[in-house]
């Protein structure tokens, strides 16, 4: 029984050692080691923030398929749309580098050790000049021809019925089919 203080002391020490990662994290939070997420410009995200934190990759996958294969493009719901809202110039007037933690996607991805290669092809900047150029360029009257409302509604109904059954869209590309 004389060993009791020694045993209790050793147990306490063990507890401290085991919980070190927790304390380190808790202390580090006050020192800025947790992700510092750059503020977005818009009033709200295209989906609730909590949903986006968990599911943004699924949304991006669907939007990418719709844009590339089906030609369904959205201004806000798109990777350039994300960049428009989430990427701003830094204090020095430059846009953050893709590898920097000041870049919106990297703030969390770097923290959790997820590596993405989106930006080896995609632009990581807002497309403000494009919007200005598009506004000036000529519109095409024939582009609106031959797009009956029935086609639009059938496509939309198909998409919404597939989703209401709680399924993610099955992609029609052979690569996706094999999974």
């Amino acid at each position, binding site marked *: 029984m004389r060993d009791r203080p020694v045993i209790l002391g050793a147990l306490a020490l063990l507890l401290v050692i085991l919980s070190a990662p927790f304390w380190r994290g808790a202390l580090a939070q006050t020192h800025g080691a947790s992700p510092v997420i750059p503020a977005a410009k818009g009033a709200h995200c295209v989906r*609730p923030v909590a949903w986006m934190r968990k*599911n943004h990759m699924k949304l991006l996958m669907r939007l990418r398929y719709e844009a590339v294969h089906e*030609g369904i493009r959205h201004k*806000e719901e798109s990777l350039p749309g994300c960049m428009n809202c989430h990427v701003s110039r830094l204090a020095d007037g430059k846009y953050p580098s893709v590898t920097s933690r000041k870049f919106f996607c990297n703030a969390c991805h770097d923290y959790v050790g997820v590596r993405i290669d989106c930006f080896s092809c995609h*632009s990581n900047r807002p497309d403000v000049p494009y919007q200005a150029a*598009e506004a000036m360029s*000529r519109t*095409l009257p024939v*582009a609106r021809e031959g797009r009956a409302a029935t086609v639009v509604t059938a496509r939309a109904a198909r998409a*919404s019925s597939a989703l209401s059954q709680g399924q993610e869209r099955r992609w029609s590309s052979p690569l996706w089919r094999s999974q």
Partner: protein
Amino acid sequence: MRKSPGENSTAGKPRRGRGEVGEGRNLGQPAERGRAEAGIDEGRRWLVGAAAVSALVLAPGVSLIAYAEAAGRRAAGASSKTRWGLLIDTTKCKASCSVCVAACSSYNGWKNEGRPTDPQWIRKVQVSDPKTGFSRSVPVMCQHCGNAPCVEVCPTGASFKRADGIVLVDRHICIGCRFCMMACPYKARSFISENLTNQKPWAPRGKGTVEGCTLCVPRIDAGKIPACVEACSREGGGAMTFGNLKDPQSAIRRALAEYPAAQLRADLMLDPGVRYRGL
């Protein structure tokens, strides 16, 4: 494709369901709530119920207001009622002019500095008949074939044809094997072998993938004409006509009905979407 306001109302209603379902499935979690409630005694159950009801009533209401606007702007997408095509009047195309190439290059953000591996989405080609001396300068780009050999040979499905006839590379699934470059008789595709930076936001392109003329697909989806056609009509000879080959009333179909127009390598029977008048 940007829609007219009339189409908006028809497409908006069914599409709006997507946001609601997504939120309900991932945020409301009715199944989990049910499991949690099972262990709570009757006396306090009303509290949980009230919280659940208020969450169900308030949360989707707030998000509905916020997201309804975005959901209403769903675009229609590519339709098989359209087949986009180009008619190039070679009698109006001067050998000295290359504004179409410059416009494509600046819009899509590629640069050809004369190296053999440099991209060439569109290029000016001098065609001549050595026996007669007849010579013409023509722009050659992806011919957006009806029976595209690049689509046939692609092992991953990255090379594909959209419903409206535009042949594209889905560079998310392109493995850079370059079979399509071998298969294309028009040499319309090129391979990116170096790291790129500062791509245009509307024209992503990167190392290890094959690329080619997209007929300026983001512009077409926004209801605009390709950059080369616009530049040709504004600064060039007005030699290019863009339009829907399936619409008998379109300018391109009326011109094709009136004058003979050649297909490049018609012997291959690829049904190209690009036709050349005066060859």
